[in-house]
Protein backbone atom coordinates (compact mmCIF):
# COMPACT_ATOMS: atom_id res chain seq x y z
CA UNK A 1 0.00 0.00 0.00
CA UNK A 2 2.75 2.41 1.04
CA UNK A 3 4.83 1.27 -1.91
CA UNK A 4 2.07 2.00 -4.41
CA UNK A 5 1.47 5.41 -2.84
CA UNK A 6 5.16 6.27 -3.19
CA UNK A 7 5.19 5.03 -6.78
CA UNK A 8 2.19 7.26 -7.55
CA UNK A 9 3.88 10.24 -5.95
CA UNK A 10 7.09 9.62 -7.90
CA UNK A 11 5.17 9.33 -11.14
CA UNK A 12 3.31 12.58 -10.36
CA UNK A 13 6.56 14.41 -9.69
CA UNK A 14 8.18 13.12 -12.89
CA UNK A 15 5.16 13.97 -15.05
CA UNK A 16 4.61 17.46 -13.63
CA UNK A 17 7.06 20.46 -13.04
CA UNK A 18 6.84 19.84 -9.25
CA UNK A 19 9.77 17.44 -9.51
CA UNK A 20 12.15 20.27 -10.46
CA UNK A 21 10.75 22.56 -7.79
CA UNK A 22 11.17 19.93 -5.06
CA UNK A 23 14.71 19.27 -6.33
CA UNK A 24 15.53 22.97 -6.13
CA UNK A 25 13.98 23.27 -2.70
CA UNK A 26 16.06 20.29 -1.53
CA UNK A 27 19.22 22.03 -2.73
CA UNK A 28 18.26 25.27 -0.94
CA UNK A 29 17.46 23.38 2.28
CA UNK A 30 20.84 21.56 2.04
CA UNK A 31 22.76 24.83 1.56
CA UNK A 32 20.90 26.49 4.48
CA UNK A 33 21.44 23.40 6.64
CA UNK A 34 25.15 23.41 5.82
CA UNK A 35 25.43 27.13 6.62
CA UNK A 36 23.55 26.65 9.91
CA UNK A 37 25.88 23.75 10.82
CA UNK A 38 28.98 25.88 10.12
CA UNK A 39 27.50 28.77 12.11
CA UNK A 40 26.77 26.43 15.02
CA UNK A 41 30.31 25.01 14.91
CA UNK A 42 31.79 28.54 14.96
CA UNK A 43 29.44 29.56 17.79
CA UNK A 44 30.36 26.46 19.83
CA UNK A 45 34.07 27.12 19.24
CA UNK A 46 33.70 30.75 20.37
CA UNK A 47 31.72 29.67 23.44
CA UNK A 48 34.37 27.10 24.38
CA UNK A 49 37.11 29.73 23.86
CA UNK A 50 35.22 32.15 26.11
CA UNK A 51 34.76 29.45 28.74
CA UNK A 52 38.49 28.61 28.54
CA UNK A 53 39.35 32.32 28.87
CA UNK A 54 37.02 32.63 31.86
CA UNK A 55 38.67 29.60 33.51
CA UNK A 56 42.16 31.11 32.89
CA UNK A 57 41.02 34.45 34.37
CA UNK A 58 39.51 32.67 37.37
CA UNK A 59 42.68 30.60 37.87
CA UNK A 60 44.83 33.76 37.71
CA UNK A 61 42.53 35.53 40.17
CA UNK A 62 42.72 32.57 42.56
CA UNK A 63 46.54 32.46 42.23
CA UNK A 64 46.75 36.17 42.98
CA UNK A 65 44.39 35.84 45.92
CA UNK A 66 46.55 32.96 47.26
CA UNK A 67 49.69 35.04 46.70
CA UNK A 68 48.19 38.00 48.61
CA UNK A 69 47.37 35.69 51.54
CA UNK A 70 50.83 34.08 51.44
CA UNK A 71 52.69 37.40 51.34
CA UNK A 72 50.53 38.73 54.20
CA UNK A 73 51.23 35.54 56.18
CA UNK A 74 54.98 35.89 55.48
CA UNK A 75 54.94 39.49 56.74
CA UNK A 76 53.07 38.36 59.89
CA UNK A 77 55.67 35.61 60.50
CA UNK A 78 58.49 38.14 60.05
CA UNK A 79 56.87 40.42 62.65
CA UNK A 80 56.60 37.42 64.97
CA UNK A 81 60.27 36.56 64.31
CA UNK A 82 61.23 40.08 65.42
CA UNK A 83 59.29 39.61 68.67
CA UNK A 84 60.84 36.17 69.24
CA UNK A 85 64.34 37.63 68.62
CA UNK A 86 63.69 40.20 71.33
CA UNK A 87 62.40 37.48 73.67
CA UNK A 88 65.41 35.28 72.89
CA UNK A 89 63.22 32.29 71.96
CA UNK A 90 65.94 30.78 69.75
CA UNK A 91 64.62 27.22 69.59
CA UNK A 92 61.13 28.38 68.53
CA UNK A 93 62.76 30.71 66.01
CA UNK A 94 64.38 27.84 64.12
CA UNK A 95 60.89 26.48 63.28
CA UNK A 96 59.69 29.93 62.25
CA UNK A 97 62.63 30.42 59.85
CA UNK A 98 61.81 27.10 58.16
CA UNK A 99 58.09 27.92 57.87
CA UNK A 100 58.89 31.36 56.50
CA UNK A 101 61.35 30.05 53.91
CA UNK A 102 58.77 27.50 52.70
CA UNK A 103 56.23 30.30 52.32
CA UNK A 104 58.71 32.52 50.45
CA UNK A 105 59.55 29.68 48.03
CA UNK A 106 55.83 29.27 47.38
CA UNK A 107 55.39 33.03 46.73
CA UNK A 108 58.30 32.88 44.24
CA UNK A 109 56.24 30.41 42.15
CA UNK A 110 56.16 31.54 38.45
CA UNK A 111 52.34 31.19 38.44
CA UNK A 112 52.17 34.34 40.57
CA UNK A 113 53.59 36.32 37.61
CA UNK A 114 55.75 38.59 39.76
CA UNK A 115 58.30 40.90 38.19
CA UNK A 116 61.94 39.73 38.11
CA UNK A 117 62.78 42.54 40.53
CA UNK A 118 60.33 41.25 43.13
CA UNK A 119 61.28 37.59 42.60
CA UNK A 120 64.85 38.82 43.24
CA UNK A 121 63.71 40.51 46.48
CA UNK A 122 62.08 37.27 47.61
CA UNK A 123 65.21 35.28 46.69
CA UNK A 124 67.26 37.77 48.68
CA UNK A 125 64.92 37.34 51.69
CA UNK A 126 65.25 33.53 51.44
CA UNK A 127 69.05 33.98 51.49
CA UNK A 128 68.92 36.30 54.51
CA UNK A 129 66.81 33.83 56.51
CA UNK A 130 69.02 30.91 55.43
CA UNK A 131 72.05 32.82 56.78
CA UNK A 132 70.24 33.84 59.98
CA UNK A 133 69.06 30.24 60.54
CA UNK A 134 72.63 28.91 60.09
CA UNK A 135 74.02 31.47 62.56
CA UNK A 136 71.35 30.80 65.19
CA UNK A 137 71.78 27.04 64.77
CA UNK A 138 75.57 27.36 65.25
CA UNK A 139 75.19 29.69 68.24
CA UNK A 140 72.72 27.28 69.89
CA UNK A 141 75.08 24.36 69.31
CA UNK A 142 77.98 26.33 70.77
CA UNK A 143 75.83 27.78 73.56
CA UNK A 144 76.76 31.32 72.56
CA UNK A 145 73.43 32.95 71.71
CA UNK A 146 73.79 36.68 72.23
CA UNK A 147 70.97 39.23 72.69
CA UNK A 148 73.35 41.98 71.60
CA UNK A 149 72.96 40.81 68.00
CA UNK A 150 69.17 41.24 68.08
CA UNK A 151 69.08 44.87 66.78
CA UNK A 152 71.14 43.86 63.73
CA UNK A 153 68.99 40.74 63.16
CA UNK A 154 65.79 42.77 63.40
CA UNK A 155 67.18 45.43 61.07
CA UNK A 156 67.61 42.75 58.40
CA UNK A 157 64.10 41.35 59.10
CA UNK A 158 62.58 44.86 58.86
CA UNK A 159 64.28 45.36 55.48
CA UNK A 160 62.65 42.14 54.28
CA UNK A 161 59.24 43.26 55.57
CA UNK A 162 59.58 46.44 53.50
CA UNK A 163 60.58 44.43 50.42
CA UNK A 164 57.60 42.07 50.84
CA UNK A 165 55.23 45.00 51.36
CA UNK A 166 56.36 46.25 47.92
CA UNK A 167 55.60 42.80 46.45
CA UNK A 168 52.15 42.88 48.07
CA UNK A 169 51.46 46.29 46.53
CA UNK A 170 52.51 45.00 43.11
CA UNK A 171 50.20 41.97 43.32
CA UNK A 172 47.28 44.18 44.42
CA UNK A 173 47.92 46.64 41.58
CA UNK A 174 48.12 43.78 39.07
CA UNK A 175 44.65 42.60 40.10
CA UNK A 176 43.38 46.09 39.27
CA UNK A 177 45.03 46.45 35.88
CA UNK A 178 44.63 42.90 34.56
CA UNK A 179 44.07 43.11 30.76
CA UNK A 180 41.79 40.07 30.65
CA UNK A 181 39.55 41.60 33.28
CA UNK A 182 39.46 44.86 31.34
CA UNK A 183 38.50 43.00 28.14
CA UNK A 184 35.80 41.10 30.00
CA UNK A 185 34.38 44.28 31.51
CA UNK A 186 34.38 45.94 28.07
CA UNK A 187 32.54 42.97 26.55
CA UNK A 188 29.95 42.97 29.36
CA UNK A 189 29.45 46.72 29.01
CA UNK A 190 28.83 46.42 25.24
CA UNK A 191 26.36 43.55 25.85
CA UNK A 192 24.54 45.70 28.42
CA UNK A 193 24.38 48.58 25.92
CA UNK A 194 22.96 46.31 23.22
CA UNK A 195 20.23 44.88 25.51
CA UNK A 196 19.24 48.36 26.76
CA UNK A 197 18.97 49.60 23.17
CA UNK A 198 16.73 46.68 22.20
CA UNK A 199 14.49 47.23 25.22
CA UNK A 200 14.18 50.94 24.44
CA UNK A 201 13.28 50.13 20.82
CA UNK A 202 10.47 47.82 22.01
Amino acid sequence: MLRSALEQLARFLIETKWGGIVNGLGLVVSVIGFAVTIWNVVRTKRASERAEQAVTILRMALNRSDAIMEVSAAIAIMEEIKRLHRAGEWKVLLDRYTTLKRLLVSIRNPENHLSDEHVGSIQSAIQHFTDIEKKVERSLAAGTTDQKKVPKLNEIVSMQIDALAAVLTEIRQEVGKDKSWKQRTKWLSSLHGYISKRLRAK
Partner: protein
Amino acid sequence: MVKLIARLHKQTLEGKIAWQKTLDDGIFQAGFPNYTIKLFARTSPLDSSALDYVIRILDAEGETIEEVADTDFDTAELRRNEAYDLMKETYTAARRIAMGVDKALDNILSELAD
Protein backbone atom coordinates in the same frame (compact mmCIF):
# COMPACT_ATOMS: atom_id res chain seq x y z
CA MET B 1 82.33 35.32 34.54
CA VAL B 2 84.04 38.32 32.89
CA LYS B 3 80.71 39.24 31.27
CA LEU B 4 78.92 38.87 34.60
CA ILE B 5 81.37 41.18 36.35
CA ALA B 6 81.12 43.78 33.60
CA ARG B 7 77.31 43.66 33.62
CA LEU B 8 77.12 43.76 37.41
CA HIS B 9 79.43 46.81 37.39
CA LYS B 10 77.37 48.62 34.76
CA GLN B 11 73.97 47.93 36.34
CA THR B 12 75.17 48.71 39.86
CA LEU B 13 76.56 52.07 38.74
CA GLU B 14 73.25 52.76 36.99
CA GLY B 15 71.45 51.99 40.29
CA LYS B 16 69.51 49.10 38.74
CA ILE B 17 70.53 46.48 41.31
CA ALA B 18 68.96 46.50 44.77
CA TRP B 19 71.97 45.71 46.95
CA GLN B 20 71.18 45.05 50.59
CA LYS B 21 73.11 44.93 53.85
CA THR B 22 73.59 41.50 55.39
CA LEU B 23 74.16 40.25 58.93
CA ASP B 24 77.89 40.46 58.32
CA ASP B 25 79.36 43.95 58.14
CA GLY B 26 80.87 44.76 54.78
CA ILE B 27 79.04 41.98 52.90
CA PHE B 28 76.33 43.13 50.52
CA GLN B 29 73.88 40.96 48.64
CA ALA B 30 71.50 41.23 45.71
CA GLY B 31 68.78 38.76 44.84
CA PHE B 32 67.99 37.56 41.33
CA PRO B 33 65.38 34.99 40.33
CA ASN B 34 66.87 31.69 41.62
CA TYR B 35 70.28 33.14 42.54
CA THR B 36 71.84 35.51 45.03
CA ILE B 37 75.10 37.39 44.64
CA LYS B 38 77.20 38.45 47.60
CA LEU B 39 79.91 41.03 47.27
CA PHE B 40 82.61 41.73 49.84
CA ALA B 41 86.18 42.81 50.40
CA ARG B 42 88.71 40.72 52.35
CA THR B 43 92.32 41.20 53.36
CA SER B 44 94.59 39.85 50.66
CA PRO B 45 96.44 36.69 51.72
CA LEU B 46 99.50 37.96 49.82
CA ASP B 47 99.58 41.49 51.22
CA SER B 48 97.85 42.24 54.52
CA SER B 49 97.64 45.96 53.68
CA ALA B 50 95.69 45.27 50.48
CA LEU B 51 92.07 44.24 49.87
CA ASP B 52 90.74 41.62 47.48
CA TYR B 53 87.21 42.04 46.14
CA VAL B 54 85.14 38.86 46.01
CA ILE B 55 81.91 37.89 44.27
CA ARG B 56 80.07 34.84 45.58
CA ILE B 57 77.17 33.26 43.69
CA LEU B 58 74.64 31.23 45.67
CA ASP B 59 71.86 29.02 44.31
CA ALA B 60 68.17 29.10 45.30
CA GLU B 61 68.90 26.95 48.37
CA GLY B 62 71.64 29.29 49.57
CA GLU B 63 74.58 27.05 48.68
CA THR B 64 77.68 28.68 47.22
CA ILE B 65 78.12 27.57 43.63
CA GLU B 66 80.95 29.92 42.60
CA GLU B 67 83.30 32.39 44.22
CA VAL B 68 85.79 34.60 42.44
CA ALA B 69 88.16 37.31 43.57
CA ASP B 70 89.74 40.03 41.44
CA THR B 71 93.03 38.15 41.85
CA ASP B 72 91.59 35.16 39.95
CA PHE B 73 91.56 37.14 36.72
CA ASP B 74 94.54 37.55 34.49
CA THR B 75 93.39 36.81 30.98
CA ALA B 76 93.43 38.61 27.66
CA GLU B 77 89.76 39.48 28.26
CA LEU B 78 90.31 40.97 31.68
CA ARG B 79 93.67 41.97 33.14
CA ARG B 80 94.13 41.67 36.89
CA ASN B 81 94.26 45.42 37.52
CA GLU B 82 91.14 45.95 35.35
CA ALA B 83 89.28 43.29 37.36
CA TYR B 84 90.38 45.00 40.58
CA ASP B 85 89.14 48.41 39.40
CA LEU B 86 85.81 47.01 38.16
CA MET B 87 85.11 45.05 41.33
CA LYS B 88 86.24 47.85 43.63
CA GLU B 89 83.93 50.33 41.86
CA THR B 90 81.08 47.82 41.98
CA TYR B 91 81.68 47.24 45.69
CA THR B 92 81.74 50.96 46.48
CA ALA B 93 78.53 51.60 44.52
CA ALA B 94 76.84 48.52 46.05
CA ARG B 95 77.76 49.77 49.52
CA ARG B 96 76.28 53.20 48.76
CA ILE B 97 73.02 51.59 47.56
CA ALA B 98 72.79 49.17 50.52
CA MET B 99 73.51 51.85 53.10
CA GLY B 100 71.12 54.29 51.42
CA VAL B 101 73.87 56.92 51.03
CA ASP B 102 72.43 58.41 47.84
CA LYS B 103 68.92 58.62 49.34
CA ALA B 104 70.33 60.29 52.47
CA LEU B 105 72.27 62.81 50.34
CA ASP B 106 69.16 63.58 48.25
CA ASN B 107 67.15 64.14 51.43
CA ILE B 108 69.79 66.42 52.94
CA LEU B 109 70.06 68.37 49.69
CA SER B 110 66.30 68.83 49.48
CA GLU B 111 66.26 70.02 53.11
CA LEU B 112 69.09 72.48 52.41
CA ALA B 113 67.29 73.80 49.32
CA ASP B 114 64.38 74.87 51.57
